């Protein structure tokens, strides 16, 4: 058993750590001080973002997650986890060329028109999956794609959390055969914003500034004719897209939780060392010591679990159980770390201008999806019932 991270990945980790420390962390104050809306979504100014992208491209790290067969770096899951952990230590919304794996399954032409422009930040993809008022009930999706002579006629309303960026397109999930159910009757389409019948409604979002309110964008399809060549994957098989890459994304999200929790731990330790109550530093208080120790133990346990799952995924083994465990543990771990950080700070962190407040906010949002947690437990139980004693 060898827990050593390979030398080349260690170098990559150091590179990402330095980049975050030197380039991203100094931007936090500026980003947070821009707007009075506490629920806003942070966004980097275009010029700053372009400069950062240029730097990352110069380092040869742009498009880390893109598979080699698609012309990307093709970094292993463990490598991506190490980089993402570092990136999650800051609240600055920046990544090293993250593209949804749904687009990986497109044909050559679709990759040319959609995947590569998204990677180059020239186009913005909206994942049009969720619908207003439907929550996570995908079986009850109302958007329909009716087959007509020239293609498919799309009708329905979707919501997207992505910002509007001029040359947008949507990855639309619509029922082509409702009788076949959600797993066999939903088809995916790529729809350009210029397509007649497709309207993007900006629900009061500001796109000029550096921050965005959290309100989603509405994507309205009204008799929108989509040519058959814009179908992504096969008809009725929308939920089979990206199946080779999506499970690993869950491990990578686990790594992001570890990054955020590590930042909370560092900030809380720093605070505890410098803050005094009743004439002595609060690090001498047993409850504070216990809280810090528990965050540290939690982070370490989660990190080992993420690294193990990533290692296993890189060996090409089935990791559905491991990814479920990673999501369950890391999500809860981050919520616990945020809770403890709040207690160490002596109360809720309400000051909007502090990065810590934003980290805690994100932690609570992640843990709020109890239904998703329940699903992870079901996956784990499924393996246990099969008698797989791993």
């Amino acid at each position, binding site marked *: 058993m060898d827990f050593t991270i390979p030398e080349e990945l260690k170098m990559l980790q150091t590179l990402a750590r330095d980049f975050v420390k030197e380039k991203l962390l100094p931007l936090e104050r500026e980003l947070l001080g821009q707007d009075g809306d506490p629920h806003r979504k942070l966004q980097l100014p275009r010029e700053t973002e372009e400069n950062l992208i240029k730097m990352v491209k110069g380092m040869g790290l742009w498009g880390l997650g893109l598979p080699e067969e698609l012309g990307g770096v093709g970094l292993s899951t463990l490598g991506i986890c190490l980089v993402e952990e570092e990136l999650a230590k800051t609240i600055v919304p920046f990544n090293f060329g993250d593209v949804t794996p*749904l687009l990986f399954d497109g044909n050559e032409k679709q990759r040319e028109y959609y995947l590569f422009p998204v990677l180059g930040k020239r186009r913005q993809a909206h994942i049009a*999956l969720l619908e207003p008022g439907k929550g996570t009930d995908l079986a009850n999706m109302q958007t329909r794609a009716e087959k007509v002579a020239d293609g498919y006629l799309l009708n329905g309303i979707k919501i997207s959390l992505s910002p509007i960026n001029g040359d947008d397109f949507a990855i639309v999930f619509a029922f082509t055969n409702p009788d076949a159910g959600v797993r066999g009757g939903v088809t995916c389409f790529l729809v350009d914003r210029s397509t007649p019948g497709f309207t993007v409604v900006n629900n009061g979002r500001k796109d000029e500034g550096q921050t965005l309110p959290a309100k989603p964008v509405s994507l309205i399809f009204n008799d929108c004719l989509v040519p058959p060549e814009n179908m992504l994957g096969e008809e009725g098989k929308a*939920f089979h897209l990206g199946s080779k890459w999506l499970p690993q994304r869950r491990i990578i999200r686990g790594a992001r939780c570890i990054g955020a929790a590590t930042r909370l731990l560092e900030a809380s330790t720093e605070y505890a060392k410098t803050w005094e109550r009743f004439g002595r530093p609060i690090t001498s208080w047993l409850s504070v010591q216990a809280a810090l120790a528990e965050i540290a133990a939690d982070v370490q346990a989660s990190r080992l679990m993420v690294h193990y799952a990533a290692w296993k995924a890189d060996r090409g083994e089935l990791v559905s159980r491991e990814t479920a465990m990673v999501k369950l543990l890391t999500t809860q771990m981050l919520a616990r770390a945020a809770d403890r950080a709040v207690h160490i700070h002596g109360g809720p962190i309400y000051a909007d201008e502090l990065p810590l407040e934003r980290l805690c906010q994100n932690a609570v949002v992640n843990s709020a999806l109890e239904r998703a947690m329940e699903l992870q437990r079901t996956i784990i139980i499924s393996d246990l019932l099969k008698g797989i004693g791993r």
Partner: protein
Amino acid sequence: MPQQNQVDVKEIEAILSEILSSRVPPVARCRLLSSGLSSGHTLDVTEELGGVKACLACGNCIDICPVLVREPHRRQKTQQRTSMALESLVPEDCDRCYACILVCPQVDTTIKYYIVNNYMIEVMSRLEGRIGSEGEPDLDLFLEEALSQV
């Protein structure tokens, strides 16, 4: 409705096995095999309900059916909460979990015991086989993708 002297499963084992192996919700047929409603534990109007083995329309089977829970849009076809409604909503897609039988107040306890003792292990392995299998996409992965998109 279970009575003091309920049906002896040994006598109906063959037909019961036939029923439980089909892909149609089995509750109504199990109800008909049961001892039925007794005047001892009903109101006077029982006869008017249409027979002692009639479905009471309690809706328990509709509420417990995992197919309808997974695909709630099927329920839009009818407001009825009878076992016949269940059969028309889940025609041949039954998971054969037998939950509808276990919750039906008209099915004899002996039948329920028989199913729990002889079929539940099989049911559990069949149901757990549905989860996380390679052919079955994990929809939550797509939700995560949509929610984490920037």
